[in-house]
């Protein structure tokens, strides 16, 4: 279990140039807090290097946009910094 902070930029509106079809978007950032539950599996480093896979489900809360489900998946490397005595 854990939580994250996320700052998400979203295109809100735009201005279209009717002559050439070019668009200028205006974006707005919103700060969210995301409490989440994660499930992962990994390979412990034998000498220095290992790896893991992790999936998370959480609730994205913040701004004025209501709660939204948040899913994520991660793959990573695990490093052993110190050798066991």
């Amino acid at each position, binding site marked *: 279990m854990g939580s994250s902070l996320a700052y998400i930029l*979203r295109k*809100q*509106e735009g201005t279209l140039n*009717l002559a*050439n079809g070019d*668009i200028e978007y205006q974006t707005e950032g919103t700060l969210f807090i995301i409490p989440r539950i994660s499930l992962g599996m990994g390979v412990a480093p034998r000498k220095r290097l290992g790896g893991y896979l992790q999936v998370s489900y959480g609730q994205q809360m913040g701004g004025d*946009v209501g709660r*939204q*489900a948040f899913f994520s998946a991660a793959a990573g490397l695990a490093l052993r910094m110190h050798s066991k005595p």
Partner: protein
Amino acid sequence: MTRKAFIEKTIKAGIGLPFFSSLLLESCNRYDLELPDLSEAFEGKFIIVGAGAAGLAAGHLLQRHNVDFEIIEAAPVWGGRMKKTTDFADFPIDLGAEWIHTHPAILSDILSSPDIDADIDFIVYNPQTTQTWNNGRLRDHNYISKLYSEWKFKETTWFGFFETYILPGIEDRITLNTPVAEVDYSLGKVQLKTENGQVLEADKVLLTVPIKILQSAHIAFVPPLPATKTDAIRQVSVGDGIKIFVEFQDRFYPDMLSFGPILKAFREEEKFVYDAAFGKDSSRHILGLFAINEKATAYTQLSTDAAIIEQFLAELDEIFDGQASASYVQHIIQNWSAEPYIQGAYSYDFEDRQWRVVEAIQEPVADRLFFAGEALSIDHQATVHGACASAFDAVARMLKEG
């Protein structure tokens, strides 16, 4: 492929939420609408029947090429299924076509005027709060915001877009209140007999009236249209259509509310309630209802507007614990089924394969009668830009076959 057929295929393919994914996919792909190259001169006279999106787009194109044409419209107003009200809220409201169902650069393509000096603001329509009402339960589906996005005008409407950028060039060619009763193409030219007793003559006629009008035999053809065409016209399904806008003192509803299980509700896309002020510079609380087919019939079959709003508020009260009636301020109803020269919503389904039906309807008759409209765009059926694309194709055909 119809939008409905595409949605069904996405379900079978397991791609995901069908309605939203289809819109998302459609939205992501920019659709380039190219005006046909009309280098050939045409000396004859054209008449366009119908001043909706297709008729106006055809006029816009013909006017640029100095072709002699006129547009006749049965109703007392131009616009067809584009209509707006400016005195209901503090922003103009689309009572008909509302969303831009493809990349907004399509607006530039429709005008195709590189010298125009104008910008237009639009909203990225990406509802953040979505709920469903199913079996008496209100459920949140806010994750939909990650799957669905379209566009809407910010300060104008589809009607306003045509009014500002297309109408000025062709306004003097439009005659309103001129319903066509008979199209006689038995001779070298086409004669249009109107309900007012006028007889108009043209070398070629482009019919852009709604499919429902062609189905209702409102217009007599002399000689009758070929059986292949009348069969194809009959195979297009067009149901009832209604939009209701209600102003409330307080906001108690999500950005979007659909009815039934989420997959079914959005696959059929036949009824939803939405925050009509989403993304607008507005301090008012305006809720919109969009309903077509049987979902619309539930309202349109009622005899009066008072009965329609009573039923709609009762429905909202059940969903939102009586907040609708308590917070009600005013409403406006646009019953498209009751419009005598529209008679419904838009093309929704086809009995045979869509391309086969559309091609049969598009096929010119005697090189003098041509057809265009929202139903006749294979890739973008049931949209304003699809109607424009269909009109541009028809004009290209008319001039080519001249």
